[in-house]
C-alpha cells in the first residue's frame, strides 16, 4: 500500500520507544519475505506466493 497513500499527519512517535529484542540471527532465519511478490493490479507488495492446491499437470 505504500505507493498509494501519503499520510497527511504523521503518527505520534511511539515507535521510538519500542524495545527491539529480536537478535540478528532471528531476522536472518525469518525468510517469510520470500513468500510474497509485488502486484500492481492488487496495489500490494505482499501478494502471497502460493503453490496450487491441486496438481495442474500430470506428466510425470
Amino acid at each position, binding site marked *: 500500500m505504500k505507493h498509494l497513500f501519503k499520510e497527511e499527519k504523521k503518527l505520534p512517535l511511539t515507535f521510538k520507544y519500542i524495545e527491539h529484542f529480536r537478535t540478528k540471527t532471528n531476522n536472518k532465519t525469518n525468510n517469510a519475505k*520470500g513468500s510474497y*511478490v*509485488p*502486484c*500492481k*493490479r*492488487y496495489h500490494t507488495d505482499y*501478494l*502471497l*506466493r*502460493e*503453490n*496450487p*492446491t*491441486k*496438481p*495442474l*499437470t*500430470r*506428466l*510425470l
Partner: protein
Amino acid sequence: MKYFNLFSNILITKGARRILISDLQRNLSDLYTLELYDIIEELKNDSIEDILKNYDTESQQIIHEYIDLLLEKEYGFITNGDWDRNFPALSYEFQEVSEITNIFIEIDHISVLDKITASIDNLGVKHLVIYASKELSMNDYQDIDKKFKDSVLEGIEIYAPFHQAVDQSFFQILNETTSRIYSFIFYNCKEIPFKTKEIFGFSINFSHENIKISACGKVDLKYFNTNLSKILEAVKHNSCLHKKIGIDINGNIKNCPLMPESSGNIYQSTLEEALEIPGFKKYWNLTKDHIEVCKDCEFRYICTDCRAYTELTHTNNGLDTSKPLKCGYNPYTEKWEKWSKNPLKQKAIENYNLPELIKS
C-alpha cells in the same frame, strides 16, 4: 439416548467396494469398508442404543469398535439427545474470485508469453504452467520471471529440456534473481547433475524420460490430494478443466492444450474473447459423478480428471463421459493395473496415436 454426530468437515465418498473418509481440516483421507458406511448412515438418524438393538451380541461388539474408531480418528462426537439439526452441514459451494485460475501453455520461444500477459492480469490467473519444447537459458528463465513482475500471478511452473549449463550455481543465481517460479522440471536428463541440501525458493525435478506434453493426464496415487479447495471444486466442477485455459504450440486457445477443439488463437484474439466463445466452458461442470467408472470410485473427489485422453466409450449430451484413459484403477476390484497394458484401452490408445506411451 446417545447420538453420534459426524463433524461437518468430514466428507465420506462411497465407492463400489469401499469408502474414503476425507478429513478436510487435517487434509487427510483414509480408506474403510462399506460396512462402516452403513453404520455411519444409521448413526445419522438413530440413537446408538436403538441401533444396537438391531444387532446380535457379537455384532454389537463390532458396532462399538466402529464407534470407538470414529471417535479415535476424531471424525465426530457423541451427544446426549439428538442435536443433529443444530450442527449445520458444510456448504459444498466452490468459491473462487478469479475468472481463470491456471493456464497451461506450450511454447517454442518465450516471446509468445507477451501475447498473454495483459489477459493474465485481467482474468486474475494464479498459476502458469509452461511446457518448453526447446532448451531455456539462464536469461530465458530470468526473462520469464521478469515478464510477470508486478502481475497477479502467484506462481510459475516450468517443464524444459535438460542441458549441460544446468548445475548448482545455475539454481543459486535463479534463486536470487527470480521470485514467482515455484517448480522446475527438467526432462531428458540422463544423469542427475548434482545433489544438494540447499533450500531454494522452488522445487527442482529431473526426469530421464523425454517427456512430451502428451504425457499429461496420468491418474496416480501421487497426484491425489485432500484439501478443502481441491475437493469442493471436484464436487461441483471438473477437477482439471474448471477455470483453466490451455494454449498449444501454435497459439490455439483451448480449455486444455491437448484437446482438439480450439476457440481462437493468441495471435488474433485475447484470452477474454476466447472465453466468450460458446462451448469453451462445456466441460467445466462435468463432475466425476457423471463420468463412467469414476462415478463408482471412492477416490473421485481427491483425483484430478482428464478429458483430453479418455477411453472413448461413452458420450452424454455431446460431452465425452468416458473414464480417463490413463487411469489404471478399477473401483470394482480395488486393484491398480498398468493402464497402458489394458487390452480394453488399446483401441483408444491407437486412436490418440500414443504408441510411445504403450512402451513405457
